[in-house]
């Protein structure tokens, strides 16, 4: 069974070291199941936050502007698909093509949000929020992203990605999309241009920070670090 060849000899010490370090491990659940666990936490957080949200205003707002449903559906689908893609990419043998999975939902999210801006331009009576109010959106998205990110990256760390930058970026997208979806509970106005730009900035901020810090999760083993 053991095919010891002269080629093996240089690796014997490493193999013995790794074997002595061996601890029993449980195979990870499937990426889909891990994504559902994370989304379950997001939904739980949304339910808790809905207790303090003005749900009647939320319902009225969505009745008045149906395109916001589309935008919310787009962000929710983005969170779902990006989470599945991130957990899939966290496996060392996954294809980088999984990164494209959330693209249709992202497009729906962007287009539906753009419709809100268009209404702002076409209908002169639409309420345009001042910058101060839109900054609350930024604060809410960033604040929600912290617990969502902590759980997401704690779960991702159980796996081992050989595409750390891409995985962290997609994970950041899932976190930002989930935060933007929950934000709708506290969004007292339609999406205007300034508001949309602030949302886009907040989402980009979360994705970039995730990319920078999340990619360090799997720094070992790496040629550049190990050399």
């Amino acid at each position, binding site marked *: 069974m*053991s095919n010891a060849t002269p080629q093996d000899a240089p690796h014997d010490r*490493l193999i013995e070291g790794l074997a002595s370090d061996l601890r029993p491990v449980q*195979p990870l659940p499937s990426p889909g199941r891990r994504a559902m666990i994370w989304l379950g936490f997001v939904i739980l957080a949304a339910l808790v936050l809905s207790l303090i949200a003005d749900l009647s205003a939320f319902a009225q707002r969505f009745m008045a502007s149906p395109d916001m449903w589309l935008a919310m559906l787009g962000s929710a689908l983005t969170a779902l698909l990006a989470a599945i893609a991130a957990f899939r990419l966290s496996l060392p043998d996954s294809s980088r093509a999984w990164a494209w999975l959330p693209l249709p939902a992202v497009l729906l999210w962007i287009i539906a949000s753009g419709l809100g801006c268009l209404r702002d331009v076409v209908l002169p009576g639409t309420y345009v929020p001042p910058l101060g109010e839109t900054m609350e959106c930024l604060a809410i998205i960033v604040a929600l992203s912290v617990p969502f990110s902590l759980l997401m990256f704690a779960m991702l760390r159980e796996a*081992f990605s050989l595409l750390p930058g891409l995985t962290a970026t997609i994970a950041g997208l899932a976190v930002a999309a989930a935060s933007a979806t929950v934000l709708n509970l506290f969004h007292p106005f339609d999406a205007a241009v300034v508001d949309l730009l602030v949302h886009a900035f907040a989402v980009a901020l979360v994705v970039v920070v995730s990319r920078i810090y999340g990619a360090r999760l799997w720094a070992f083993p790496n040629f550049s670090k190990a050399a």
Partner: protein
Amino acid sequence: MERRSRPGPVSPCNRRAASSEQPLKGRDSAPGVGEMGRRNMLAVADATAFIPYSGAPAESMVASHARTGSRRRMATAEQTADDMRRSALMAAAQAGDKTAYQTLLRDCVPLIGAIARRQGVSADQVDDVVQEVLLTIHRARQTYDPGRSFTAWLRVIAERRAIDLLRQSGRRGARELHAPIAFENYPDETADPAGGLHHADDSGRVSRALASLPPRQRQAVQSLVLNEQSLAEASALTRRSKGSLKVNLHRALKSLRGSMEREG
């Protein structure tokens, strides 16, 4: 799109064996494999109707390119048997069987080497790829689904690590110039012809300074400087984090510098 099968405590090999009514006693198993590995391998033998192990996994992969139909079928059967045996060993390793794990890693070495060479890694760098892949298998062993092909899982990891190395070599090649004659002819302006006389004395001072270091700092210097181990390798062998090794090496070098300066 979710194609990953649900992992469970029983691998397909075991499931198939469990459905077989043949007794497992009396089958030969590989030497040096733990109890769990032996059980899994007996199950593989049941599942594969006693297809003998070829003893050359890398060659069996190459053999898949056999020209005739019968040879191709034989090669495929050997591949399947090899793959199922590796999957069983990995499942045993996930359960903590160290002997099965060592057998698996040794079995992987020629296969990783073959994959690295096929990716275009030069002969002097193949060992680097092998070590990185072995470390990756260790770190990522919980991500392996026993219901899937181990060889396919390993192949993707080995290919990625080989490509990582090629990219890094390419970047280094773009920055550095290989000119051995110019290097040899370049005069060292700081060279001290009498330096050799002080060398023995310096060695003694360094040894004394090393002996005075705390154990962890001495271990970091021993692994990373004297044994010339990579950070990853030293981390795996000493069971200390890379960060801890770096910090201890930094402190050790600072202490050594202070000691040497004090001694003049």
